[in-house]
């Protein structure tokens, strides 16, 4: 593992929990595993490129059922709306959560590694069976966060 990146990877649960708590008190992180999120169910992935002196990509992945539970918690808390399927509002909420997490990771990269780090426009990828980096130039580091609403995979490729 890139040693520069290690402290930032270790901060991801804390950064993610900070974002979750802004949206809903129902969502908490229970545990963390240093494994890349397994692809064994329909998943939705949020992918955004970092650019600047630090370049790479962050991918946040979640299973359909967990996405619905996560979005429902937030929609219920914030708007008193129920969500029970993967549709516009659910994925919009997930995108916003991921954008915030990615933004906080980028800020940590900038402040700790002293490298400029900004975000490009994100992509949402539905039902991919795998997402691979360019093997010649990149290394992938991943963790899986178990939350009260289900697992979320966070992978950084740089």
């Amino acid at each position, binding site marked *: 593992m890139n040693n520069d990146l290690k402290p930032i990877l270790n901060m991801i649960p804390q950064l993610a929990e900070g974002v979750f708590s802004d949206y809903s008190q129902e969502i908490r992180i229970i545990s963390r595993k240093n494994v890349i999120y397994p692809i064994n169910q329909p998943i939705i992935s949020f*992918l955004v*490129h970092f*650019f600047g002196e630090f*370049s790479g*990509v962050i991918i946040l992945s979640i299973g359909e059922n967990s996405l619905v539970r996560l979005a429902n918690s937030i929609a219920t808390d914030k708007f008193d709306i129920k969500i029970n399927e993967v549709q516009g509002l659910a994925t*919009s909420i997930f*995108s916003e959560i991921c954008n915030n997490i990615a933004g906080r990771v980028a800020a940590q990269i900038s402040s700790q590694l002293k490298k400029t780090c900004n975000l*490009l*426009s*994100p*992509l*949402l*990828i*539905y*039902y*991919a*069976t*795998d*997402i*691979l*980096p*360019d*093997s*010649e*130039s*990149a290394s992938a580091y991943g963790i899986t966060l178990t939350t009260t609403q289900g697992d979320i995979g966070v992978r950084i*490729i740089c």
Partner: protein
Amino acid sequence: MNIQYLNPFIQGFCEILAEFGVIVEKRGQLSIASNLIKSDGFAVLIGINGQIKGNVIYDMSRQTALDLASKMYGTEMKEITEEVTDSISELGNMVSGKASGTLHSELDIFFNITPPNIVFGEQTIVTNSTIDFIVIPLDTNCGRVKINLAIKE
């Protein structure tokens, strides 16, 4: 999106593939996909950043990826291996890099590209929140490749 950004990618694609003996036999009809595309199974995602920003996605079937990689390697590829993903990634890199050079020299527009990521899955859908994709299907002697371009100034 300014349509003039499109042709350098098409031109670059045709020129790079010709170097490997792959011929673009037909250019399909250009269409607009409202910020959503459905993959044919094998997609190379590249980010674009500079005076223009967005993403370019080179999308094809698994078989087309194998056939293109076979041409690039000069030997038949029968399954998706690291060599196949690397060669198609590199193809995306080369085409995007060539387009970047053309836009810079002809229109004084400068941008960088990110390293590619490969997305697998025949049910895969890729969306972005704000920019429509312009889709150009190109039929080659290895199968169809779609260039999906979502760019804003």
